[in-house]
């Protein structure tokens, strides 16, 4: 077990190095590279630019610059925002809460609803419910999230007037109920794709389990059906869902960006788009690296957790 964890950890660190390499390459692809901030203002002469280049160490060979940049990233110095000079990490962390709130709510909805649909679909395979769920899941995966958001706003905010059309709070109202009221629509929109994914994975995982020999054995020895399902089938079918949770993470983050844009939710996705609009490259790069690192840690945790609960995969 310890060996598996160490192996997996080493892999993750290697991936992080490659991920940071890609990030560094993108940073240097930016027009004007890391100097664009000064070049854009137009108030600096070529001599000034040369001096800044030397001061920032941009005249050194690229590998050295990369090592320097990577070292600073590891120590938590992610640069400063062009917009207000605040450190990138603190800008990100001030927006992280709203995003996590949205992602967590959507995930809870998606896991409960998706697993329920998936299990029921597997147990009543090819029934009307299963067929509708399968087709529905495919359509849900194909609807552009932002468009579903627009439709939601139109129906629930414009026509019915039940839900607010955006933002996290009503100004001057900090109550929990108000927050919840604002959370419903974006969480629902973000949960749509997630529910479809969880439903599909849950269905195939359940189908795989209920055709196993030990289920037939349990049935043969006269165990009541509900006990077979809950104790034997469900417990085993839920295990691979840990991996799904890890795999889902990038999609979830991407979906959050879109949902936040449509509902003007003040999270990391919204910050990312604003920063792109302002050409605030340090923040753009910071969020890019931050999200990739989160994805990396997510899949690492999912793998380790899966190895803990399922002894079969510790080998290798």
């Amino acid at each position, binding site marked *: 077990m310890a060996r598996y964890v160490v192996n997996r950890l080493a892999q993750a660190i290697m991936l992080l190095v490659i991920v940071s390499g890609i990030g560094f390459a993108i940073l240097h692809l930016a027009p004007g590279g890391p100097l664009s901030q000064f070049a854009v203002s137009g108030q600096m002469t070529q001599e000034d630019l040369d001096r800044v280049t030397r001061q920032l160490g941009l005249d050194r060979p690229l590998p050295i610059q990369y090592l320097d940049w990577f070292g600073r990233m590891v120590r938590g110095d992610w640069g400063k925002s062009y917009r207000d000079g605040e450190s990138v990490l603190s800008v990100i962390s001030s927006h992280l809460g709203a995003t996590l709130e949205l992602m967590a709510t959507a995930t809870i909805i998606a896991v409960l609803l998706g697993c329920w649909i998936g299990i029921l679909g597997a147990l009543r395979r090819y029934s009307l419910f299963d067929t509708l769920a399968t087709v529905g899941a*495919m359509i849900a995966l194909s609807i552009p999230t932002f468009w579903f958001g627009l*439709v939601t706003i139109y129906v629930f905010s414009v026509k019915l007037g039940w839900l607010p059309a955006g933002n996290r709070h009503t100004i001057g109202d900090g109550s929990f109920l108000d927050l919840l009221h604002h959370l419903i629509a974006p969480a629902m929109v973000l949960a749509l794709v997630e529910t479809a994914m969880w439903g599909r994975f849950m269905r195939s995982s359940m189908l795989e389990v209920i055709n196993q020999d030990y289920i037939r054995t349990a049935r043969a020895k006269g165990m009541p059906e509900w006990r077979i399902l809950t104790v034997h089938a469900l417990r085993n079918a839920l295990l691979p869902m840990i991996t799904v949770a890890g795999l889902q993470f*990038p999609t979830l*983050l991407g979906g959050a960006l879109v949902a936040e844009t449509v509902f003007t939710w003040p999270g990391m996705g919204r910050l990312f788009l604003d920063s792109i609009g302002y050409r605030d490259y340090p923040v*753009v790069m910071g969020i890019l690296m931050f999200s990739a690192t989160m994805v990396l840690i997510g899949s690492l945790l999912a793998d380790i957790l899966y190895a803990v609960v399922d002894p079969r995969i510790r080998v290798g």
Partner: protein
Amino acid sequence: MATAALSTAQLAPGQAAWRRFRRHRLALAGALIILVLVLGSAFGPYLLPFDDTYIDIMKRFAPPLSGAHILGTDELGRDVLARLMMGGRVSLSIGIVAMVIAMAVGIAVGAFAGFYGGVVGAVLMRLVDAVLCFPTIFLLLALAALTEPGLVTTTVLIAATAWMAVARVVEAQVRSLREREFAVAALAFGSSNLRIMFRELVPNAIAPIVVAATLNVAKAILLESYVSYLGYGIQPPAASWGNMLNNAQIYLTSAPWLAIAPGVAITLAVTSFNFLGDGLRDALDPRMNIP
């Protein structure tokens, strides 16, 4: 395809696959809808009396079915149906061209990694893993923000963020096929590595590749709509299904039809390609069952 032929002894593999595909009604419906969308976008504009960029300020916000404008007009009085058709040309072309580029890169990387294995394979596949760590939309927007937006850049960038899944599929296939007798035989005949890779191994992995290609078109159309909606893809006055939704949110209360038509078009196209991919998967290889 040896196994497919075995399972249905009397039929040629192609025929058997076609039979299985025909049974998949949703895939057939998908193929039909795609055909209608492609033909409509290609020839539709010639049948309309309106140009997609013609501005008629006197006829702003005409609702659908009012007079000659079947789907109404937008905030500048442009015909929505004409824009939808021209937008279809852009969105569908991007979907298909981005798929072709992504397939070319993905197949090349996957074939090399799977064939050579070892350090080369490990490095290439870790690169794939690393790119997959970035949430696609984040990566796409960051790259789009660094470049001049337009038709070509949007297509290339979408392909750049979509090739990894293909590389994984091809790598796994090539790695297992490499050990099979026909590949060993080709090696014994003295075929070059490149020849074995692209004439023997890749054609034998054609079933999963075709499925991946179809699903890739769906993904590319969806991604185009995201970047264009957010303003970093196809730029106005040219229409795409994504950028038609750009202003739709502002006029949601007064002119909801501006949001409906392009959204339905995107959903229809993406769903159709997804169902087509599903049907092809069932038809080409009944054993494959990736959720």
